[in-house]
């Protein structure tokens, strides 16, 4: 009798283990199917876990601050010289910017161009940073209570960080430009050729879908093009830092490894369906044709139309 009971218990255990394995595999496919209920549950759990992670990661932040402090003290003199040089350079750029701004204003009044849509920046603290090798997302301490919506761009003073993809009550998840699923419509600043930056789950981005005629230069600035309307045009994404055959690599303008605070640009997504948000869905590369219009006023040969 006891042996029968043991056997049935062992059989039940085997069935339970099999069901668990089956459930684990099913979960992966359900997760990939991107079901709204599952996405909401995911964000709800993140909302619940985020404050706990925040508390547990306090020592890590402390260590990071300490290491940064020691490094700063060690290089104080050199840093001072560098900052003075940078300050002089910035003063020159400021004067130049003032001249250009005035010129820009005059030109706008002549051409009747519409000013870019106003967005309100909202500062948010980064609770987590990418920890795994398979997803580059950031959890920030603002949610729909602060009027954050899916599709809002996330920036720092240096440039674009990513895009809000999930919004909870007090926390939101940001898909960073370095994530393998992030595709940002961009233009090369000096030649205006359009392309698409593709994240690689690493430090650099790949600049893809550039027209064959485009000749990106090392150090050339890459800006958002504004295609699709989700991201405003003109946000710095990075600089070209490697050109080899057809491969163009971009170094992000923002140091994504040390993000403590970011700004969320709220507003500007009205009328855009952001329920199934993926950065790539808002940009379809135009066919390369001499007559096709790649950008307003430009054809594939780079000539004004």
């Amino acid at each position, binding site marked *: 009798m006891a042996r029968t009971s043991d056997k049935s218990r062992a059989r039940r255990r085997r069935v339970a283990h099999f069901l*668990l394995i089956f459930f*684990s595999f099913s979960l*992966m496919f359900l997760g990939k199917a991107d079901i709204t209920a599952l996405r909401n549950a995911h964000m709800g759990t993140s909302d619940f876990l985020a404050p706990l992670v925040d508390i547990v990661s306090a020592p890590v932040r402390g260590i990071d601050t300490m290491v940064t402090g020691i490094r700063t003290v060690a290089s104080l003199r050199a840093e001072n010289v560098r900052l003075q040089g940078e300050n002089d350079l910035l003063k020159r750029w400021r004067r130049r910017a003032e001249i250009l701004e005035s010129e820009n204003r005059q030109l706008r009044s002549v051409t009747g161009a519409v000013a870019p849509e106003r967005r309100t920046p909202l500062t948010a603290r*980064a609770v*987590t940073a990418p*920890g795994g090798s398979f*997803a580059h997302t950031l959890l920030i301490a603002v949610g729909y209570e602060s009027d954050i919506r899916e599709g809002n761009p996330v920036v720092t003073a240096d440039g674009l960080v990513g895009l809000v993809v999930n919004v909870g009550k007090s926390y939101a998840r940001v898909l960073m430009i370095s994530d393998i699923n992030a595709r940002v419509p961009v233009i090369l600043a000096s030649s205006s050729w359009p392309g698409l930056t593709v994240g690689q789950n*690493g430090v650099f981005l790949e600049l893809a879908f550039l027209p064959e005629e485009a000749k990106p230069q090392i150090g050339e600035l890459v800006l958002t093009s504004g295609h699709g309307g989700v991201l405003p045009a003109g946000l710095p994404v990075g600089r070209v830092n490697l050109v080899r055959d057809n491969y163009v690599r971009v170094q992000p303008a923002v140091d994504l490894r040390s993000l403590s605070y970011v700004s969320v640009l709220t507003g500007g997504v009205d009328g855009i369906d952001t329920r199934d948000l993926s950065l790539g869905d808002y940009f379809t590369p135009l066919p390369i044709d001499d007559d096709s219009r790649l950008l307003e006023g430009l054809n594939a040969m780079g000539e004004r139309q």
Partner: protein
Amino acid sequence: MKTGRYFAKAEFAIDWPVKFLVGVIGVVIGFFEGGLGLWSFFYGATPLLSMVFLYWMMLHNEKFVPVFLVFVIGLISDILFSDILGGRATAYVLAFYYVSLRRVKLLQGDFMQIWLDFAVVVTGVIVFQLMIFSLLNFAIPAVTPILFQLGSTLILFPLGYLTLFSLASLVEKVRMLS
């Protein structure tokens, strides 16, 4: 017959608070692992500290580590790192079965053998996640962070193993004294 069932119930009653505690510690270690990403050194590739903890527990205190607990810790890590839901959880469950099979042999071996087997387990977990990721996304992510994650986990393993051993002996001493 009934006595057996009551004994089983009594055993369960003794074990479950410890299992719960193990679960809480595992989840907190998972949180800490997530927090490590804030440190620029570990950006995008934090060592799998929860795996070190689970491996040690599976080897030395396997009765306090039910497979469901391993699954839950993996699932929470998936949510925290925004990885494919269930990817790490499944990898952890498979690692659990592997360690269960190898447990007796490993306990008879020396530390190097345990370390080597841990290397196999962690590599298996990461390769499994990579395969699932590549299959579902039709893309291969940058390999450097993955190798860094693997390397840092293996380097930190002896430290984690020793720390857990010291803590366990400390707890044992306190238990003996009280």
